[in-house]
């Protein structure tokens, strides 16, 4: 990162150098250079005495770890995961809640992380594709089913589909094929490998029931 850029925008309040503030803030594993991604000084100012006002420095529970992160007020979860925490497995396909590639679990429920403010999920349990496999590399049953069935083609949609399937199967462990299709229907696959995806996810359901 270049030496302390003044990160103000014209029309806003005078900026402050965030460099020192950031030091030590970004949790281990984050790619520091990418933290420049969303830097910008507050424009409306901050009066922390007001009810409901929020701090930028927050703690997130991601993939079972507590991570201290500096998060801008207008930052989405997808951006925090990808550019602050280095978790690039979560993909941005549309950034507009219409493809599902960025799906992550928030308290076990699938959400489009492009359309969630990071500040909204403070204190909630976030799981991204990187958090599914066991630390020893053992794949989650859904991941294993994908591998066993050579599921997906370009796989840009895959992390989103896998997360949706994991979340959906928690609510319906024994779905019919049609139910599974509805459960996964919020994810778009442009290779249109839907049939094979349904095949492997039905196997995944079985794998999860066994696990």
């Amino acid at each position, binding site marked *: 990162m270049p030496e302390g850029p003044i990160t103000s925008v014209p029309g806003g309040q005078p900026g402050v150098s965030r460099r020192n503030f950031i030091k030590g803030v970004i949790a281990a594993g984050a790619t520091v250079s990418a933290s420049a991604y969303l830097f910008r000084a507050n424009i409306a100012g901050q009066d922390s005495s007001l009810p*409901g006002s*929020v701090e930028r420095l927050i703690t997130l529970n991601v993939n079972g770890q507590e991570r201290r992160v500096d998060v801008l007020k207008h930052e*989405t979860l997808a951006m925090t995961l990808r550019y602050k925490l280095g978790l690039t497995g979560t993909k941005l396909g549309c950034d*507009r*809640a219409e493809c599902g590639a960025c799906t992550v679990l928030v308290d076990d429920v699938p959400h489009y992380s*492009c359309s969630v403010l990071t500040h*909204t999920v403070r204190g909630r349990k976030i799981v991204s594709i990187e958090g599914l496999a066991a630390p020893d590399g053992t794949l989650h049953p859904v991941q294993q089913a994908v591998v066993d069935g050579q599921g997906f083609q370009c796989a840009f949609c895959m992390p989103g589909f896998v997360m*949706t399937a994991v979340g959906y199967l928690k609510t319906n462990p024994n779905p019919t094929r049609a139910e599974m299709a509805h459960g*996964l229907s*919020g994810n778009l696959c442009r290779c249109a490998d839907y049939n094979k995806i349904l095949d492997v996810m039905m196997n995944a359901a079985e794998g999860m029931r066994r696990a």
Partner: protein
Amino acid sequence: MPAAIRDVMPAFELFQPTSVADTLGLLERHGADAWVMGGGLDTFDWLKDRLRKPKVVVDLSAVAELRGIKDAGGGIEIGAMTTLTEVATNALVKERFGLLAEATGLVASPQIRNQGTMGGNVAQDARCWYYRAGWPCYRAGGNICYADTPTAVNREHAIFDADRCVAVNPSDTAPALIALDAQMVVRRGASELVVPAQDFFVGPGVDITRLTLLRPGDLLTAVRIPGTWAGKQFYFEKVRDRQVWDFALVNVASAINASGNAISEARLVVNGVSARPYRLEAVEAFVRGKARDEQTAEQAGALAVRGALPLRHNAYKVPLMKALVKRAIRGAGAWTS
């Protein structure tokens, strides 16, 4: 003229109040500078397109009292921040008001239902693609409707009650709520308005820039459904191009109280055809006391579309609406036999 860019959310100050009182305080304090965010799905579109740049966003996600479904003496009360998935899968809703559960279950996509809220779904803005492109149309405060010109593409637009603007209300839950005689609970400063769902929505003639009566500073806190229609016969159908994400081309919600084969009371609401969910009071009156059969359904369908004024590309909405109203009278299952 400066260039436009339709990507990257502009910065704002964020507030995450934990009570309705604090929320109202923030809204009063910031006035028109404040933007109320529920699930955020409509909000993010406006912000990421940089078409709205509020100074302050008030995120309701931490207001616990706005969440949840309560039993209210035969009826229910649904907090505005209750997610659509919760509404669609809630046992009480399914038992008493299957119509709402069904309509809610057909909104957008599973993830959107997991995040989108009851309040957000009824209060969402129009999806007219000219308006959403940021063009200076009537709805955006300008002096033209781009969707109602000789060359406009207006397949998804209104066939009823257009007044300059021809956008439609995109909500799936709104017609169900109107059919169930629901009431909207709105906090306006110190006062609380309880408005029939039907009157919560406004047409372009009355207010061309908003789809509901919510003004800056207002807060929709809950939806109340009285017990009147609990357990009655319901029908909901949504026609759209793709079975996920897409908004309804036309949808229909009906609640029918029938004794034997005779309809004693009915509610019929169609959406996707005008800027307000379109309640068919004339049809409701017509079917009252009539036998619930093919003939009544047929006549009801014909009556429903009376006065429709289609645009160049949406004439199909007339027969489509007619068919849906017909089915809504006949009821589920009847038409496939």
